[in-house]
């Protein structure tokens, strides 16, 4: 097994988005003291689909909208998202899912 070094910027975002894979995601999450569960993964895959469809990292509101449509009403709220990705869920999700830093983070 080869060791690879993955370049992160000072805020912990990937410098090269192509470095992302599920192992990388787990390490990026661990650096934030998050252990990835199924609930985390379905959100990670959701934002990666969002990015491949729209080529923008979702802000909070479109994130909640997508969660409502794809994962159901009971998960479509910021409390749920904050429990899994504390602080700023849209930004943290983008980081762990290997998306660019949201240009519209305020």
């Amino acid at each position: 097994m080869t060791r690879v070094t993955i370049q992160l910027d000072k805020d912990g975002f990937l410098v090269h988005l192509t470095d992302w894979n599920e192992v990388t995601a787990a390490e990026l999450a661990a650096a934030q003291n998050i252990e990835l569960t199924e609930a985390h993964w379905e959100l990670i895959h959701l934002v990666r689909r969002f990015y491949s469809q729209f080529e923008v990292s979702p802000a909070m509101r479109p994130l909640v909208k997508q969660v409502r449509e794809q994962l159901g009403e009971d998960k479509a709220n910021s409390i749920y998202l904050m429990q899994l990705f504390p602080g700023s869920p849209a930004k943290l999700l983008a980081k762990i899912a290997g998306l660019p830093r949201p240009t519209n983070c305020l």
Partner: protein
Amino acid sequence: MIASPGGVAEWPKALVLKTSEGRPSESSNLSPSAISMQSSPPGVSYDCYRRIMMFCLNVHGDPASSQSVHSALQFAKATVASGHEIYRVFFYHDGVRIADCNQVPPQDESNLLQQWIEFAEEHSLELTVCIAAALKRGVLNEDERARYERVAANVYPAFSVVGLGQQIEAAISCDRTITFPG
């Protein structure tokens, strides 16, 4: 007494000032008939009453290849001279290049950066550049230089590097938003 043409109701933050003494707009060379007037209440001439307005400016053009940074400065100066206020100047697109302190204009051309800085200092003006547009064009303050481990910061300190939210917040907070496109 407060009176205003055009209906104060449209202007939620209406502050109507009587400015017949030393009216700043006297410097204007507009004749009253030269511009389309709002209908005035009977017996009240528009020019008797003026309201101080808050403007925000979006400046999009590259200082080297468009006039917009120059025009925006002339407009900003006239705004302050007229008694109105500038809430924020937001440089976006190639306009962010004005903040680059490494510009060396030829001796026989005006130093636009210097003029903006002096004007902003004199009137406590908020000069902002969009962080995403600035990063892309190599215009970095010390925080961004450190974050991305680049060689040198080059944003003149009079400019703050801010998110796009500042552009929208300014437009929401102001009476008028004026864009100088590139």
